[in-house]
């Protein structure tokens, strides 16, 4: 088998038309919208180019990120990234404030507005700080250089004699001789393009970046002033309720809308299979929708939760070789003990707090869109295509987004709102109900894993053969030092590789926070624990013995110090677990303590300790919040979250049966940020969620000696495994 490059960052669920191409920002238009002030253009680095290139879009060569120093001295950052809770509204502003020497309070963020912000492929993959941060930092350094140049003329001093602080340029030896950025910009429209890039500040000089900082959007969010897409109000706005099929693949046969049309103020519109009731009150539209009598063809899908795994193996497309090293047969000869096991993961919903929502207003051949999306530029392209107008005529504005987790890379609601707005001749809001959210979501793909591995007489892992079906390739490579290994991914994309001859999944699938990784790590790190027991070693000792990476060993050590418990060969009855990963450069080691009620099969997670090395940390407080959130959210896919379905129907429709973590689940959470400022900032929004499945599975094994091979580890499964083990 010929190795092919793993396309780790590819998102496969882009719909039939591929990614939106976006529109190059016209400088004239930008200047008009952005107003006066100093504007510095800069180009993005290789990282983002790589990200965009992987997605096959036709991206503009224009400088694609901007900042502005306004006539009042305030600094505006324009980024195509969006804020969905992950906190970059604060951390990107901190990076900018640091580099430009202005107070954090003087920075305004404009995010995800296609008319104002540089093209961006989307907000996902824990990439904002890592890839958007550096070019923005560089731009800020350039802006500072320009201001110093202007100040030198104003103050009659050489540039070398000047220093900057708090939005002011001053003569270093005579601080009273100074001029503010506001005075320098003076309301003029100055467009400067520096030919030479000034150096950025070394970490040791940082005064803003690296300091724990509270969220800058918190005040708006605790007062109710923060606007989400569903909070946009326009004159004449109509709210849509859309007719949905009862099952995926069920085609509409007929719809009798007469009764719905009798509701005062209700309008029924139809465009092919899209049937909707519009009303100036959303609840009245929803009520009227229930009066539509519709008939659908039955779904062709005959799958359900019990048959899915056999089907997924059968429907597997050709394998992608993620990694191949050494020779598996040679490795097998070195092995004195061999372990083989399969693992399984069910479909999981994103279940964002805010369901997918969009408002579309069409005026002539222009459209304005407010959408809860992780990919505003992609949405721009989709709307343009839907309405048959140029992308440049579509402005997508992204208000605050209420969670994304990958689920808002896809935005069916945006296109629906555009189609309905066109039909209605009025602005239309589409806000999916929770039931629609559970039906239209792109679920984390169900997947199957098979691992065969061997130990030599010294308890070293000598070979590792890994196959996954529909999980995605990310984090499928072992972090351990293994001479003979092969990792195959059948269906490597995060959508679960549905492109084979047989449709793999009965509904849409896509990236889910730490896509691929959270289930690959479940399989890998569960298997490592089995090998540790086979070796007769504690799970901690076995890992350290087989790790060669000093940075990873340091992170594991940091977690162990904080955990403060001694691991021993499992099962010990104490319920301690460990799992580690390298998530795209961020290193994570998590340790957990659980209690298991053997009779009921119920798991209570008592304590979780997570040590993480994210490289340079911009906002330690923000990083902690992300890690804590990852741990808390991760408990759901460990213990309860599973989309149940049958014959194309999704049986879980709301939070009554689809249980997500709540207050009563909360373990004690302790986070250790491993200091590593010499490494460039890495991603933080996803890494810690990816180890949760394995750390809890391993802790359950240590508690009761039952190996859980299927996510989620529900009480019923634990009881069942207990009988068979």
């Amino acid at each position, binding site marked *: 088998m010929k190795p092919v490059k793993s396309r780790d960052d590819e998102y496969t669920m882009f719909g039939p038309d591929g990614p939106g191409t976006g529109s190059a920002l016209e400088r004239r238009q930008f200047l008009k919208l952005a107003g006066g002030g100093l504007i510095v253009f800069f180009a993005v680095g290789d990282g983002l180019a790589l990200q965009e290139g992987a997605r096959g879009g036709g991206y503009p060569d224009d400088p694609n990120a901007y900042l502005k120093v306004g006539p009042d001295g305030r600094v505006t950052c324009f980024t195509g990234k969006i804020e969905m809770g992950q906190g970059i509204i604060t951390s990107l502003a901190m990076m900018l404030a640091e580099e430009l020497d202005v107070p954090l309070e003087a920075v305004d963020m404009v995010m995800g507005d296609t008319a104002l912000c540089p093209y961006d492929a989307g907000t996902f993959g824990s990439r904002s700080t890592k890839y958007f941060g550096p070019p923005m930092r560089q731009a800020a350094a350039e802006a500072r250089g320009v201001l110093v140049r202007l100040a030198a003329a104003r103050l009659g001093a050489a540039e070398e004699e000047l220093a900057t602080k708090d939005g002011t340029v001053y003569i270093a030896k005579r601080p009273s001789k100074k001029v503010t950025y506001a005075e320098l910009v003076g309301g003029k429209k100055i467009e400067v393009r520096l030919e030479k890039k000034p150096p950025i500040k070394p970490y040791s000089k940082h005064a803003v970046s690296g300091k724990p900082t509270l969220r800058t959007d918190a005040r708006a969010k605790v007062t109710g002033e923060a606007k989400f897409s569903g909070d946009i109000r326009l004159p004449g706005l109509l709210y849509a309720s859309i007719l949905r099929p009862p099952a995926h693949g069920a085609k509409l046969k007929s719809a009798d809308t007469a009764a719905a049309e009798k509701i005062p103020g209700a309008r029924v519109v139809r465009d092919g299979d899209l049937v909707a009731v519009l009303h100036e009150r959303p609840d009245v539209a929803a009520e009227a929708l229930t009066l539509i009598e519709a008939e659908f063809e039955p779904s062709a899908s005959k799958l359900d939760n019990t048959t899915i795994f056999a089907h997924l193996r059968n429907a597997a497309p050709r394998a992608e070789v993620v990694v191949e090293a050494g020779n598996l047969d040679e490795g097998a000869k070195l092995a004195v003990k061999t372990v083989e096991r399969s693992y399984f993961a069910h479909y999981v919903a994103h279940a964002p707090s805010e369901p997918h929502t969009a408002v579309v207003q069409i005026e002539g051949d222009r459209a304005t869109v407010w959408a809860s999306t992780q990919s505003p530029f992609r949405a721009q392209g989709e709307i343009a295509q839907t309405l048959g107008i140029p992308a440049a005529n579509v402005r997508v504005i992204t208000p605050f*987004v209420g969670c994304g987790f990958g689920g808002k890379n896809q935005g069916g609601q945006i296109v629906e709102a555009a189609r309905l707005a066109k039909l209605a001749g009025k602005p239309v809001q589409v806000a999916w109900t*929770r039931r629609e959210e559970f039906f239209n979501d792109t679920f984390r793909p169900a997947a199957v894993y098979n691992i065969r591995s061997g130990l030599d007489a010294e308890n070293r892992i000598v070979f590792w053969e890994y196959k996954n079906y529909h999980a995605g390739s990310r984090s499928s490579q072992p972090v351990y030092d293994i001479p003979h290994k092969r990792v195959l991914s059948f269906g490597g994309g995060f959508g679960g590789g549905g492109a084979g001859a047989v449709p793999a999944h009965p509904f849409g699938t896509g990236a889910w926070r730490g896509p691929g990784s959270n289930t690959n790590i479940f399989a890998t790190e569960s298997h490592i624990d089995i090998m540790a027991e086979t070796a007769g070693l504690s799970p901690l000792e076995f890992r350290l013995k087989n790790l060669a990476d000093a940075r990873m060993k340091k992170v594991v050590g940091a977690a162990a110090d904080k955990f403060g418990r001694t691991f021993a060969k499992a099962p010990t009855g104490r319920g301690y677990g460990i799992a580690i990963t390298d998530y795209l450069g961020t290193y994570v080691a998590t340790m957990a303590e659980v209690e298991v009620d053997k009779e009921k099969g119920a798991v209570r997670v008592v304590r979780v300790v997570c040590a993480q090395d994210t490289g340079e940390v911009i906002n330690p407080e923000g990083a902690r919040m992300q890690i804590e959130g990852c741990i808390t959210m991760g408990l759901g896919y460990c213990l309860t979250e599973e989309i149940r379905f049958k014959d194309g129907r999704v049986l879980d429709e709301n939070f009554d049966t689809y249980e997500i973590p709540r207050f009563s689940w909360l373990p004690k959470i302790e986070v250790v940020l491993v200091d590593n400022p010499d490494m460039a900032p890495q991603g933080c929004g996803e890494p810690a969620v990816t180890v949760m499945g394995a750390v809890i599975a391993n802790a359950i094994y240590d508690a009761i000696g039952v190996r859980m091979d299927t996510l989620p580890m529900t009480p019923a499964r634990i009881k069942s495994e207990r009988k068979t083990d």
Partner: protein
Amino acid sequence: MDKTIRFKLNGKEVRVESPPERMLLWVLRTDLGHTGTKCGCGEGFCGACTVLVDGKPTFSCQFPLAKAEGRSVLTIEGLARGGRLHPLQQAFIDHGALQCGYCTPGMILQAYGLFLRKPNPTEAEIADALEGNLCRCGSYNRIIAAVQTAAKAMKGAIHEAR
């Protein structure tokens, strides 16, 4: 059939002409333009739409407008007074007790309702009172800390809901 319903919203008398069986959530958000109250699940399973009705935390997506007649409704917009944040709001900021912020209004009002019943709740009582409010971002640990801090800051002197 429309009916005139009168109630107090954040201390001010309001009058709504509407079918009385509509749920309060949609009247607040659409008819009255108070969008701080969010719809998370629409069926009473998530708490994002929590408001106070006569001081009692209430899922407004399950509360018919007719029942609001003559009563006092407090939404997140009514919690700060004269630009001064309520101690709960300040504590949520200070503890970083939110991420996306979508569940935050409901969380704060649920906690406010708890204070009216029990000004100095224990950690377990806070968790129990907020059990029906879901936060997908996973800020639960910080929310509990924020509510504890707010309780201390108020020293039991919770003002009555308007």
